[in-house]
């Protein structure tokens, strides 16, 4: 089932994963069990995903993240918000990010 993601909520990387940059690839390695579907999976993010990931923080709502990116990349806010929701949806279902509650 699709995870519900809202722009006014805060999403942050789970403590159960480690993000690493290895030879130009951005990868996320599970530490604790329960991340992803299979035990020996790792994850990589595309360029857009990586830019959003870098901004995720327990101190910012997803809307804040999108706003910052829209200023930084001078891109349309609506499209960037859509990307943020899309990425977080994928990460949430794999338990790579956690929802920190309403801001």
């Amino acid at each position, binding site marked *: 089932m699709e995870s519900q993601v809202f722009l006014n909520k805060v999403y942050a990387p789970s403590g159960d994963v480690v993000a690493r940059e290895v*030879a130009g*690839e951005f990868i996320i390695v*599970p530490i604790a069990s329960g991340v*992803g*579907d299979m035990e*020996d999976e790792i994850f990589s993010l*595309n360029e857009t995903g990586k830019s959003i990931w870098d901004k995720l923080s327990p101190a910012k709502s997803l809307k804040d993240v999108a706003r910052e990116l829209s200023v930084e990349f001078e891109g349309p806010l609506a499209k960037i918000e859509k*990307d943020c929701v899309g990425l977080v949806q994928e990460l949430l279902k794999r338990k*790579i990010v956690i929802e920190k509650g309403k801001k």
Partner: protein
Amino acid sequence: MRRKTYVSTQVFGKAGLFRKLRPVLSSLDMELTERCNNNCIHCCINLPSHDALARKRELSTEAVKKILREAVSLGCLSVRFTGGEPLLRGDFQELYLFARKLGLRVLVFTNATLITPGLVALWCRVPPLGDIEVTVYGMKKSSYEAVTRVPGSYEAAWRGIHLLLKNKIHFVVKGAFLPQNKDEMGAFEAWAAANVPQLDGPPAYSLYFDLRCRRDDAAKNRLIKSLRPSPEEGLRVLVRQKDKYVKGMQAFCSKFMRPSGEKLFSCGAGCGGCVDAYGVFQPCMMLRHPDCVYDLKKGNLRDALEGFFPKLRETKAANPEFLRRCARCFLKGLCEQCPAKAWMEYGTLDTPVAYLCGAAHEQARFLGLIGKKEKAWTVNDWQGRIDAFVKKGR
């Protein structure tokens, strides 16, 4: 319309992760100790578990962590903890957790005798992402302990294996083909097929045993030699599943078999490496010749990988017998001859290992790559031989 995806999933250890560059180091072996609580008759490395001197010389917890940190900074994705018996170290769990928290996949070679409920709980909570590899020395107490020479080791090992099974920890098993257990291969393989889902075929066996890799025990070397299968017996083990063996060799031959010329290293030694229990970085798990190793106490992994090992890999053989035979022999690849094996057998880097030469020729004769009395290094049209062999399978 196809939905945009931001995350792609990869399986650790499978090719295709690196589209751009390759890391300086992709995997590392760490021999945490040479000590072992078993005393296997065929073992090339073990020191007694109570060897105080060896224990004192071993890397401290902090020193191991420093090496792991550097490995990760060089892009390393996997570390394999081996020994001796790595679980003998009191800080094993701490090192394991440290490695995993750095984002490393951890593989472990173990005899399983020291696996505890606490360790299994840790592996459940923080999975290794790689297999635990357990060597099984026998299916019966009599055979198992005839190999390990430690009373009670059979029960301890099976207790460990059952803990892994009960808690669904991913592990694989392998065997060691020895006179003491060779009649139990069928029972071992049937048990493995029914119980170890991670295995995608029968377990692998150590077959052509190595001599002591520190060249430290002539009497033990005599014992190991007496346990080795003859080339004919080795072949019988390999071809028990004849079709699979021949198919595998066809794929292997077309990719890897060719004369190596006078270059000593035609393998991957030195592209990664193995840190021994005392902080000496070897180009591979077996090669401990003093001229081939790098002391990490006086340097670092990067310097070894970018400076010392690449120079070492350029070394050329000087032994006239090697130049006459191995340099021109297309069985290189099928034959396990390499600088590490020459070091263990003769204390040199480039002496052809008679035992391995015999084993390789026996296999090549069976596969039809050479004639009955032919020596592989005399075959000029070796590519034609390989092509004909590979074509047979199509």
